[in-house]
């Protein structure tokens, strides 16, 4: 019997939870705020879905309801992607070692 592709995705999902568990425990507590802002930025990879939604359908009518939701989601996710990565960068620039 063939395995449902869903099972593969579920396996990836569960394995990544474990990867995430070990990776996040190794994050130094002093970088927990950048951790939150960067996870915020990467979870906006949901923009992938938004792009598919926005570009769906024929070229004649690019502003059907489902497209509009896609476009709105693109704006929201883009705010997050740029905002998230840039603010993380800004914070990480400030972490400096003692000058000797």
């Amino acid at each position, binding site marked *: 019997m063939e395995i449902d592709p869903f099972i593969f995705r579920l396996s990836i999902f569960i394995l990544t939870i474990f990867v995430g568990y070990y990776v996040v425990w190794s994050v130094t507590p002093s970088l927990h705020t950048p951790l939150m*802002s960067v996870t915020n930025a*990467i979870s906006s990879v949901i923009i992938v879905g938004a792009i598919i939604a*926005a570009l769906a359908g024929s*070229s004649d009518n690019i502003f059907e309801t*489902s497209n509009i939701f896609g476009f709105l989601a693109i704006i*929201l996710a883009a705010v997050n992607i740029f905002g*998230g990565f840039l603010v993380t960068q800004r*914070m990480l620039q400030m972490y400096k070692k*003692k000058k000797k």
Partner: protein
Amino acid sequence: MSANLSALFYLISGILFILALRGLSSPETSRQGNYFGIAGMTISIIVTFLSVGNFGPGFIYVLVFLLIGGSIGAFIAFRIPMTAMPELVAGFHSLVGLAAVFVAISAFLRPEAFNLGNIGNIKLASLIEMSLGAAIGAITFSGSIIAFLKLRGIMSGAPITFKGQHIINLILGLAIIFLIYYLCKSQSSNIFWTIVLISFVVGVLLIIPIGGADMPVVISMLNSYSGWAAAGIGFTLENTALIITGALVGSSGAILSYIMCKGMNRSFFNVILGGWGANDQTSSSQSKEQKPVKNGNADDAAFLMKNASSVIIVPGYGMAVAQAQHALREMVDALKKNGVKVSYAIHPVAGRMPGHMNVLLAEANVPYDEVFELEEINNDFANCDVAYVIGANDVTNPIAKSDPQSPIYGMPILDVEKSKSVLFVKRSLSPGYAGIDNDLFYRDNTLMLFADAKKMTEEIVKSL
């Protein structure tokens, strides 16, 4: 681009995201990690464009909206003061949540674009995944909005509780599950909208009973939710990058919530069910018989610290509120010139979000290798001459170790009282968020400096 090839590229993005988090294990590798994250995101977006393969007028609009959103995001990122990071992160969470809801709605309205079947005949698994994604996304959105309003001070940080709250939440939660089941049978769009609507309400109800002091847990929890919402959408769209990211973010937020709960010695459910923080403010003010405190001024403090050989600074949220971090750094510089060894001690729940104090100190050019976590530095208090507590309170209260009746009993605290003398900068003797009196105020080795944290620190700099 073939589906297999794009799936491989999404996998690469996923791995880059893992490396982005891995980079945060030390400040040296963290910047590189951030570039990995940006690379992963760029690959994901380009691959999506190529696999959709529609470069008509819609594509131009996508780029325009991407740029509009991007400029707003960049503008915010450059302008936001570091003290406002908690609000910013809460606000960003709400955007992820809402984006998840929108994508789910879009997939429901036009399932054929996502290979999920046709309207009225959407695949069963996809229907479950998208409604779960939409529900968690909606909860994340409205919950984060409430958290944002509370952090921003637009809404009072006091917990809002009413009778039967938990039962209503339970009923609404069960209603969502029941409606998802019913949606699978009927494919009715009305039910889908109802699920989204109820989830918005649940998000609000979930966060309003949680007090201001518990915000670090709330933010971490919403961080986790936004990840699970992304994963739900990832399953719907059968997209590996989204599934990997969702799982990463979900577990990251869960671990941070756990660390925060442990820092306050409270169970996760205790925080979620709410109602600490506001209750015993009144009782403690009555019991506060006038115990003698030693009152000092800036000159006394400067004298004590100048003649010390080691000083430990204990910053708390009050320092952030007073914007005293720069003045503090100046004070430390002056002390170092006098040959005093200075380090900083940070409690896990200092500030309004995990790691908040570290960012604020980094902003004030404090080198990160002078800043220590609780476990690293707690033994050093016994050998230290002066502890300078600025804007922290409950996390230094020795009662957490001695009085089993106290609400904060068992909470890990900084052993400030073990140092030879304690300088406590505070505006009054009022209790902190836990609503309990701090025993430390009345110790013989404590000198209270009643003033605004920034003003007092500046005055000390002058007298040094």
